[in-house]
Structures are given as C-alpha cells and as structure tokens.
C-alpha cells in the first residue's frame, strides 16, 4: 500500500471527522451530551517565597517594572489555589484524531518576562511569538520529543512556530535574559486547561466516558485522578500538589 494511498485515506477520515474551524470531532458547539470536568488545583505545604529578579544587565527591561518584578515559578493565591498548572485528559480518549484549530496561540515577551508563563497549544497549531519589548530576545524551546530551535527576535519582528508532537511541557528560555522561563505544552487533543489565578480550571465538551486526568506544574510535578463522567454531567474535582521546601 503506497504512502500516498494511506495519506489520502487519512485526509479523508480527518476531513470527515473534523468540522471546519478546527473544533474537536463532536463539532464546534458542545454536544448536548458532553460532560464538563472542573475544579481547582491547590498547593500544599510551604510555597518558596518569590524573589526579586535582577534585570539590571539590560536597562531596556526595567521600564515595564517600576516597582521591580518577582519570580513567577510558583504562584499561589491566599487560599492555596495554584496558578499556571495544566489539567488535561491523559488517558481514555483512545486513538481519536483531532484537527488543530486555525487560530494561533500567542506567547508574549513583555518587560523581559513571558506572558503567559505557561501556554498550552495543540499539535501543529500556530504559536505566535510576540516581542513587545524594545530589546532583542531569543526564544529557545528545549523539547524532548519535538524539534529544538532557537531564534533571535528583535523588537516588533514577527515570529511563529509549531510543534508536531504531544509534549507536556517544553521548557522555554531566553539565553539573553537568563531569568526568562516559560513552558509550552503541546496536546494532540483539545481537552486541557491552564489554571487561572485562583487555581481553577474547566475542561468542557468532553464525551461521556472514563478518563485519567492529570494535573501538571512546572516545579511541583504531576498528580492524577481517575474519573467517570456520564452524559451532560459536570464533575468537580480537586488536585493537590505538594510543595517541598526548596522546590
């Protein structure tokens, strides 16, 4: 069987499965029977104190931070809600295929920090890299399962990248400003969420079934829960990641 034949079949299957607009197989609007998993990710134990970042080596970085800027490796609110954790379906989807969305995800370099600190994209989805600073950056993802690249980006220059394979998550750094760190998580399916300031997340449009849900954080590791959701069910779960002194 020739490769062309296989790819023709695959393209046919994908085209039939995905609705234009790049939504999951169920279609762009949530199916009436779709389930929702939501909740919070909390951190337990002593969270290491954020430290002030010394940006003095590049004076073009500091105008964005008149009061100085603190590290954002582990950010938790007053009730231990953990920001910038990723919650995603790690098992239970079988080998379902999903087309990447047409619209691009964005990661911005502003005041010599990455916004957001964690960005989640789909495999082969365009990730726009924006340099809003007046200084030159380089964006250097160090993946295990995708292509490593390292591009210089002067102020305002357009740049975008894609990642072909799932990887949670790719550490990203700027070698010019060594305090700049972020993560790019790449998913082959649309069932993931990055937690907000209060540690909350919501994964919607999930077909009923049994799943393993994983919560991931760049510094605090991962934890999993197995759940089963029925038709139109909304399930609330809570994850706890342990912070250890010095982590």
């Amino acid at each position, binding site marked *: 069987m020739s490769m062309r034949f296989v790819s023709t079949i695959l393209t046919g299957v994908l085209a039939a499965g995905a609705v234009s607009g790049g939504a999951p197989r169920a279609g762009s609007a949530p199916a009436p029977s779709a389930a929702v998993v939501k909740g919070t990710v909390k951190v337990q134990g002593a969270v290491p104190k954020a430290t002030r970042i010394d940006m003095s*080596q590049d004076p073009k970085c500091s105008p964005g931070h008149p009061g100085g800027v603190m590290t954002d490796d582990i950010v938790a609110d007053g009730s231990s809600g953990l920001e910038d954790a990723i919650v995603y379906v790690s098992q239970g989807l079988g080998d379902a295929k999903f087309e990447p969305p047409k619209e691009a995800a964005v990661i911005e370099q502003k005041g010599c920090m990455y916004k957001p600190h964690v960005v989640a994209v789909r495999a082969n989805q365009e990730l726009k890299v924006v340099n809003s600073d007046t200084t030159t950056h380089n964006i250097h993802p160090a993946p295990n399962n995708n292509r490593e690249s*390292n591009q210089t980006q002067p102020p305002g220059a357009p740049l975008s990248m894609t990642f072909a394979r799932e990887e949670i998550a790719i550490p990203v750094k700027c070698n010019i400003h060594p305090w700049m760190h972020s993560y790019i998580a790449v998913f082959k399916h649309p069932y993931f969420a990055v937690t907000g300031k209060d540690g909350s997340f919501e994964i919607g449009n999930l077909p009923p079934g049994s799943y393993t849900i994983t919560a991931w954080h760049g510094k605090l590791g991962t934890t999993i829960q197995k759940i089963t959701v029925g038709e139109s069910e909304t399930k609330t779960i809570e994850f706890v990641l342990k912070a250890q002194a010095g982590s």
Partner: protein
Amino acid sequence: MRTKNISTNCVVLLALLFSSVTSFAQQSHIGKLTGNAKQGKALYRRYCIFCHGPYGDGTGENAPYMDPKPRDFTKATFKCRSTPSGSLPLDSDLYDTISRGVHSSGMPSWRPLTRQQRADLVAYVKSFSSRFEEEKPGAALEIPPAPPNSAESAKHGAELFESMNCWSCHGKEGRGNGPNARTLTDSKGYPIVPPDLTSGMHFKCGDSDQAMFRDLMTGLDGTPMPSFSDAVKPAEAWDLVHYVETLHLNAKKGILVKAEPKGE
C-alpha cells in the same frame, strides 16, 4: 519441488525489494558521491563508537570524560548546518562536519578517511533518527557574495553587536565574558561557554567568512547560539561578520576595537 522453487524465488524477490526500500532511506548524497549506511556501520564501529556509542546516543565509553559531550544522533540536532534552526541538516553539512571536525571539542577531522568512507558514515549517522525518514532537510541558506570589508561595515556590525544583545553572552568586548556567560547550558543541560572572539581561536563550524555568515544566520542548534535569519538582513549579517573579524585581527595585533554602545 516446483512449489519450493517458486517460494524461494518469492523470498529472494521480497528480500531484494525490502533491502532496496530500506537502503534508499539510509543513503547519503554529497555531490556525485552516494554513501551507504551498511558500509558506514562498519566504519562507525571502528572509529566513532567509542565516543558516540553503539546506539548513536552519544554515550560511548569515552563520553563521561569529554566536554563538550559527543553528539546524540538520535535527537537529530546538529550545530553546523546550512538549514534553518530546527530543521534537519543537509547530507553535505554532516559530510563537512565529519571532514572538518569540530574545533574546541573532542571531534577530530576525519579527512584521513576516503571521501566515499565519509559519505558512508553520513548515511549511517542519519539512520539513528527516524526524523531523516519522516522529514526533508530545510531549505539551504543562500549566502550572497561578501561585500568588501570596510571600516564602515565593521562599525555598523559593532552597532548590531550591541542592539542584537550579542554582548549579553559574548561580552561587550567579545571576550566571551558577557553577563550571561556563566548561565548557559547546552540542550542536555551541560554548562557551555561562549567563545572568546578576540582569542583568534578556531570557530566550531569553520573559520571562513561564509562559515561565519552561515552560523550567524542558522544558529548552532543544541547550544544557546540562536539563529539570526529572521532578525537581520544578509547585508547586516556581513557587517557583523566583518566586525567579528576585526576582533580576531586585533587580537593578533594586541589591540582591541571596542563596541561603542549607543544611547544609554
């Protein structure tokens, strides 16, 4: 008797078909040379295995004692490329690296091997990563003819050295002592230092004007040195090359041209 013959023929035919399919994926093409992974394997096991290891992952028995570490071919990430950052190198890029060696590392020049043997090694090195079967190398960088080196050009290069933040690793005077020099790691997490551009040392991927232009534009993948192909125009890249050459030259004469920072 007859059926046996037919089935034997079938087996032979299938084997031929299969070997021709696999060997096509494991060939290299450098100019008129065609390298073959099968011959390359024998050479690899004789010359390369001690550092790069039997599985090509850079964990040969000498590897623990080496700095920088031998290349991990399973990642298909190569420093010396004429293709864009993140893409596969050309066969000729790998051939050139094997021939030239990598300065400031344990990788020697393999010019003592015949050209055919080096081409065979390229084919075998490619067989360690399936990426060479799945993807094509990126488009080769076009290197326009070098404009004449002038004080004007070098001076503009010095300005770019400042505005492109080259100094943050390479140092304001190109001595490899920028504020970030001690924070740098390669993609395996091992410490790596930027070269002292004033020392007159050899560059990793060759010293010619064209090699410097290429390395600046495509970056050295696996190291902190980024690609500038989307950041500077070819003429500006030549200005940078000319500036770096003045650092080299002046190191020999014992004088140093300092990059004059603008603004600030």
